C-alpha cells in the first residue's frame, strides 16, 4: 500500500527512482577510467612528437584502437553523467535545466559517434 497522496503523485514529488543507477554507473565508469586515463596520457606522450603516419600506424593497432575508443566513450559517458548532476544542482529554471541537459547529452552522443567512426576508419579503413 502506497502512503503517497494522489496529489503528490500528480505534482511529481518524491524519488525519481533512478538515483542509484546514476550513482552506480558514475562510480563504475570512474573506476574503469583510472587505468584508462593513465594509459591515455602515457600513449599520447609517446606519439605526440611523431607525424601523421606514426599516429595513424599507432592507432590502427587493434589494442590501441580498442583502448582509445574505450577511453573516449567511457570518458564521455562519465562527463555526461557528471555534468547532469552539476546542472541539476545549479539550474533551477526548468526550461533552461532541460535545455542544458539535452544539449550536453546530444553533444556527448555526437562526439561519441565522431570518435568511433574516426577510430574505425583508422584501424579498419571503413
Amino acid at each position: 500500500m502506497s502512503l503517497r497522496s494522489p496529489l503528490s503523485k500528480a505534482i511529481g514529488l518524491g524519488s525519481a527512482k533512478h538515483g542509484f543507477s546514476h550513482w552506480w554507473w558514475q562510480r563504475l565508469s570512474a573506476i574503469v577510467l583510472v587505468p584508462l586515463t593513465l594509459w591515455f596520457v602515457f600513449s599520447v606522450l609517446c606519439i605526440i612528437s611523431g607525424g601523421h603516419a606514426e599516429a595513424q600506424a599507432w592507432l590502427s593497432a587493434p589494442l590501441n584502437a580498442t583502448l582509445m575508443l574505450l577511453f573516449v566513450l567511457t570518458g564521455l559517458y562519465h562527463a555526461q553523467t557528471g555534468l547532469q548532476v552539476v546542472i541539476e544542482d545549479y539550474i533551477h529554471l526548468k526550461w533552461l535545466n532541460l535545455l542544458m541537459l539535452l544539449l550536453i547529452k546530444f553533444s556527448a552522443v555526437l562526439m561519441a559517434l565522431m570518435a568511433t567512426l574516426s577510430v574505425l576508419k583508422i584501424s579498419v579503413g571503413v
Partner: protein
Amino acid sequence: MQKERPLSPHFQVYRPQLTSMLSIMHRVAGVFLSLGSPLLVFWLVSIANGHASYERWLDFSSFFLVKLFMLGWTFAVFYHLSNGIRHLFWDVGHGYELDTLHKSGYAVLASAFILTSITIVFAVSQGVLS
C-alpha cells in the same frame, strides 16, 4: 507552486577549508575536462581524415593559448583522477576521520602536481615544449 525561499549564505560566510576547496575544485576540474573533450575528438578526426587534416591540427595545437589550455587540462586530469580515487574510498566508507581527510587531501594535491610535472618533463623531452 515554488515559493522563493532565502538560500543559506555559504560563500560569503564560510571560511575556506581544505575539504571544501578541494571539493569544489574537483567539480571545476570535471567541468573543465568536459570542455576539453571536443579537442580530443578533433584530434582523432584529424588523424582519420589524412595528412593534410593532421597538418591543420598541428598548426592549431601550436598556438600558445591552445598549449596553455592543454597544460591546464593535464593538471585537471591528474587532479580529478587523484581526488576521484579519494572519492571512491569515501564511497566504500573509508577515510572520513578529520586527520585522514587532511592527509589524503594534501596527498591528492601532491599527486596532481607531481604527475603533471612528470608529464611536462616528458613532453619537453619529446620536443613538444609543453
